[in-house]
């Protein structure tokens, strides 16, 4: 089984467009939307969710106000600043700040703090035209996005094994932090979608450094290359000079892409993109050999 993760560093460069297109070309595949706190792939890969599961992660402190004496030990020891005394003189937890570490429960002399499991979101398996899509929705104002990413990555592998599919295409989150690490772990190739802007270039460099850090192969697609052709060239040169990263090709700017995608139009049918994406996919397969 091969797992390809589409990343970018900078947001809005076209990860979801590329992920959806490659899923259509390589079908049948298992696609995964790992941008769990702003998930969009399910808006493109339409179909029917055949499985829906709650996702619990982390814990939250709960105060037994009858037992709490207001001694403030928990408040003093909480490094997340999640506890305070309310007007009744008993401890109260700020759910958004509580990290679920359990130190308050440990230090409370009255046994007034317990830790309860936290419902952090839900995940879904969908049957689509290109195979399967594993996607998720992180709960509002929840942390634990990295754990949810790890969970749906596992589910994608399970689905691929069950359905005898050998390709997993992962639409990753922006950035290079925790949920990106969870998206990259165990993947065979990072497909970086860049754009010819100073921001796109800057964030691509950081993403390439991250690939080096994790010792994972990296290949680059420049999207919207014609918005600044000379800067696109410079990105290509930067990639060639690095010697470690492969260049897969360019895609033109087309302002109709987002709306066409949202209308459920096959991304390969959007004017001129089909052959370009096929070429990118063939080069990707070469790299995975």
């Amino acid at each position, binding site marked *: 089984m091969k797992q390809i993760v589409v990343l970018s560093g900078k*947001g809005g460069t076209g990860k979801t467009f590329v992920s959806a297109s490659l899923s259509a070309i390589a079908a049948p595949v298992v696609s995964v939307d790992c941008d769990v706190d702003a998930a969009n792939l399910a*808006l493109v890969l339409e179909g029917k969710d055949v499985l829906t599961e709650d996702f619990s992660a*982390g814990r939250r402190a709960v105060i037994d106000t009858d037992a709490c004496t207001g001694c403030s030990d928990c408040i003093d020891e909480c490094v997340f600043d999640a506890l305070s005394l309310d007007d009744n003189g008993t401890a109260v937890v700020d759910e958004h700040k509580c*990290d679920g570490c359990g130190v308050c429960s440990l230090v409370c002399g009255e046994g007034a703090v317990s830790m309860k499991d936290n419902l952090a979101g839900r995940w879904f398996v969908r049957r689509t035209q290109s195979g399967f899509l594993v996607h998720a929705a992180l709960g509002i104002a929840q942390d634990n996005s990295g754990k949810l990413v790890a969970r749906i990555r596992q589910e994608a592998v399970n689905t691929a094994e069950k359905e005898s599919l050998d390709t997993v295409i992962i639409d990753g989150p922006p950035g290079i*932090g925790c949920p990106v690490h969870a998206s990259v772990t165990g993947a065979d190739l990072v497909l970086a979608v860049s754009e010819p802007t*100073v921001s796109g270039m*800057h*964030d691509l460099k950081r993403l390439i450094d*991250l690939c080096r850090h994790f010792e994972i192969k990296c290949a680059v697609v420049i999207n919207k290359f014609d918005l600044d052709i000379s800067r696109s060239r410079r990105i290509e040169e930067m990639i060639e000079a690095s010697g470690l990263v492969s260049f897969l090709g360019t895609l033109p700017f087309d302002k109709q892409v987002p*709306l066409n995608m949202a209308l459920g139009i096959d991304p390969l049918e959007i004017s001129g993109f089909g052959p370009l994406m096929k070429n990118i996919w063939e080069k990707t397969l070469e790299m995975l050999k």
Partner: protein
Amino acid sequence: MKVAFASGKGGTGKTLFATNLAYRAAGKGLAAAYVDVDVEAPNGHLFLVPSDTSSTRLSVEVPFLKTETCSGCGECQKFCAYNAIVALRDTVMLFPELCHSCRGCMRVCPEGALAMKKREIGSISRGFRDALAVYTGTLDVGEARAVPLIEGVLESVEHTELVIIDAPPGTSCSAMASVDTADLVVLVTEPTPFGLHDLTLAVEMCRALGKNVSAVINRSDLGDRGVFEYLEREGIETLAAVPFDKSIAEAYAAGKLAYENSSELANALQSVEDWIIKSMPAGKEIAS
């Protein structure tokens, strides 16, 4: 007054609006700071190119084994909610990049074998572009936890009349930490179904945190009516709508402050600024 520019979806124009607005306001005499807390992909400095920059490193606390007395009892592993410790037969294996610095492992160790040490995760730099103070948080490549650095950057900002916070995309812990101390949140969106989907999540996140939100619609002519209708229905004020303009896209691509070449963008920034000024408790005036 602290104003955060946030969005659910990436690439909607947070940095475009935050950098241009902050620089323009500072040019008119308002004591202003631009604070980039998109620490995984900080880009504001590419447009503001601050000079006289000084930089400090930010550290978090992580455990280390200080003695050879580890009995391999596993109490630390059992306590750790972050899978950052694995107990072996007579020692522990530590994964500091997963640690959340709660100090619980140190407390539960019956041998007193664990202590805390500092681990650097990123840097905070401060410089100036003319009168504008420019702060940037940069997470070290390979580090996972952005939140302590985001909090560190925000704490390092010296008191000024106007603090413009450039937040990361998403609605998870990093985005929450970035808007947490803001008085006002401006959500930068685009009128596509993707923009709408992620805007809805960002609004819900802000409301859960008790924040008042308003919106700026970027590339307002490239899309459908969904975002406009949603904002209307939710009673969220739209401060400005900026149509797609190739000269803005080109200036942004080249790392320039785009408002200097786009009256449309300059007008939009003025509307946002007027709203910020109106929202300030003292009703502070900026000379135009």
